[in-house]
């Protein structure tokens, strides 16, 4: 666990980057620090591994005050994924990943073996290890950055806008990979971004910062979206925050029935009973089948696009299991909102 207790950071030029911050980042969870530029989120992150030291207040990692530890040794025990990867251009991918194990004196052979293992963990081919960073794509470089941070198996991982410089498609892939990795590894992750959608996707908890280094609200994504603390948070979450809340809920509980027959629109299936398209007498519309793990937001989107207001549901193999109506989706969407609101109330009462 990472604890901030009344932490204040004022830079020599007089600007206050972080103002009286008290915050706990739970063990094994992803805490996302979010806010516009200059709000102190990156400074907060960098105080954890002493890239910056606080002006006053105490920061503890695993119960130990960070300023009482040797800075270099502390940093080796904390993974750090830097903006735009920050890889060493003169070292091969494998040696980049092996950086911290080598600093810890693990020996070149052992460090490289561990690095090769991590290549696979982050989804890179083994032959990428012999290459130099400039020979990889931006997305691959980010993966190497993550592998390098994981190399010494640190309990804490700091990520400073790690996916900011890659295109949206690759960013989504990298986010998925991170969520998959996190399920396996259970690290305590602190993640800085200015992208609220990224925060909602990745965070177990989201801390929203306002200019001047003020923490405005720290809560689980659903709670934040349902009950923003003030107008600033509401504005930051955006006009579609109701829809964003739906992105956190899955479709699994929404009831489904058999596909309609004899109406003006028919669902066309292939031999394996996989949905192909909606067809009418003189029109065809593509269908996007959804699985139980897909979000209510995706379901709502599809129900609006579908001519019948129905979404088609499939199992893991893509075989049709049934359809759900727009009304059922709406009812569940409303229920999700009510639930998020009531959770907030009970937590506040407790």
């Amino acid at each position, binding site marked *: 666990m990472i604890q901030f207790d009344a932490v204040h950071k004022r830079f020599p030029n007089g600007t206050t980057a972080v103002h009286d911050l008290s915050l706990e980042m739970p063990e094994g969870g992803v805490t996302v620090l979010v806010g516009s530029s200059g709000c102190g989120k990156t400074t907060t992150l960098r105080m954890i591994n002493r890239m910056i030291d606080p002006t006053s207040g105490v920061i503890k990692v695993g119960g130990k005050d960070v300023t009482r530890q040797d800075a*270099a040794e502390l940093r080796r025990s904390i993974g750090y994924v*830097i903006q735009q990867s920050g890889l*060493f*251009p*003169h070292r091969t991918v494998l040696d980049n990943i092996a950086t*911290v194990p080598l*600093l810890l004196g693990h020996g070149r052979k052992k460090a490289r073996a561990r690095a090769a293992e991590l290549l696979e963990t982050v989804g890179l081919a083994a032959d990428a290890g012999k290459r130099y960073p*400039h020979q990889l794509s931006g997305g691959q470089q980010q993966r190497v950055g993550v592998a390098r941070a994981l190399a010494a198996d640190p309990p804490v991982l700091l990520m400073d806008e790690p996916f900011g410089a890659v295109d949206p498609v690759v960013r989504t892939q990298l986010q998925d990979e991170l969520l998959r990795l996190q399920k396996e590894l259970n690290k305590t992750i602190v993640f800085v971004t200015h992208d609220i959608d990224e925060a909602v996707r990745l965070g177990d908890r989201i801390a929203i910062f306002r200019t001047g280094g003020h923490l405005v609200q720290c809560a689980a994504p659903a709670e934040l979206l349902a009950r923003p603390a003030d107008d600033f948070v509401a504005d930051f979450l955006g006009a579609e925050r109701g829809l964003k809340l739906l992105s956190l809920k899955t479709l699994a509980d929404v009831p489904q029935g058999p596909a309609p027959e004899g109406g003006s629109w028919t669902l066309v299936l292939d031999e394996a009973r996989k949905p192909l398209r909606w067809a009418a007498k003189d029109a065809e519309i593509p269908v996007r089948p959804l699985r139980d793990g897909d979000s209510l937001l995706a379901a709502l989107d599809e129900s609006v696009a579908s001519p019948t207001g129905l979404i088609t549901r499939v199992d893991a193999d893509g075989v049709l299991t049934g359809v759900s109506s727009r009304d059922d989706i709406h009812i569940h969407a409303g229920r999700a909102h009510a639930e998020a609101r009531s959770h907030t109330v009970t937590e506040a009462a407790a």
Partner: protein
Amino acid sequence: MSVDWSWIGDHTDDLTSLTFSHLQAALTAVFFGLLISLPLAVVAHRIRPLRGFLLGLSNVLFTIPSIAIFVLLLPISGLTRTTTVIGLTVYTLVVLLRNTVEGLDSVPAKTKEAAKAMGTRPLRTLLTVELPLALPVIMAGVRIATVMSISLVSVATYIGDGGLGQLFTDGFQRDFPTPVIVGVVLTLLLAVVADAALVGLQYVLTPWKRRRA
């Protein structure tokens, strides 16, 4: 002006030893130049106020006429190889110091920050990250300093050294052009070969620069 080929044939041993002596003087000067430039460049790179002073000093040293340097050194090191090397070393500083400082400046801040964030201490960062990344710019300086030193060695003929430069005085004194021509050609060849060797060395030392994607 014709070349007396038989003179060359009769003096191959002398020519060989003069060539090696010439090369040795130049390379020794570059070696000591680097030895002095590296720590000074690190200081100039890290401590801003000292940068102007150190670079300015190397410029001023460069403007001292070479003969004057040798004369000034005579009471200290006499008519020796040491005097030659010290003189040449002073001249290499102007290129080596400037290029090493610029090389260190060229290392991306992001990369240094990554090294720090991984838990690398400053000295190790300098040796394993900053200097390797500065190498292409430093090597550009080493190449200039080497070629410059090879051409300057001849001046030390005035103090009885000077490698191939001795061929020039020999030729002038006897009004016999062959040694002068041979001296010029050998000096040029030496410069070209040394430069090519340094290009090769840089290729070996910077594997990451080779296969551009």
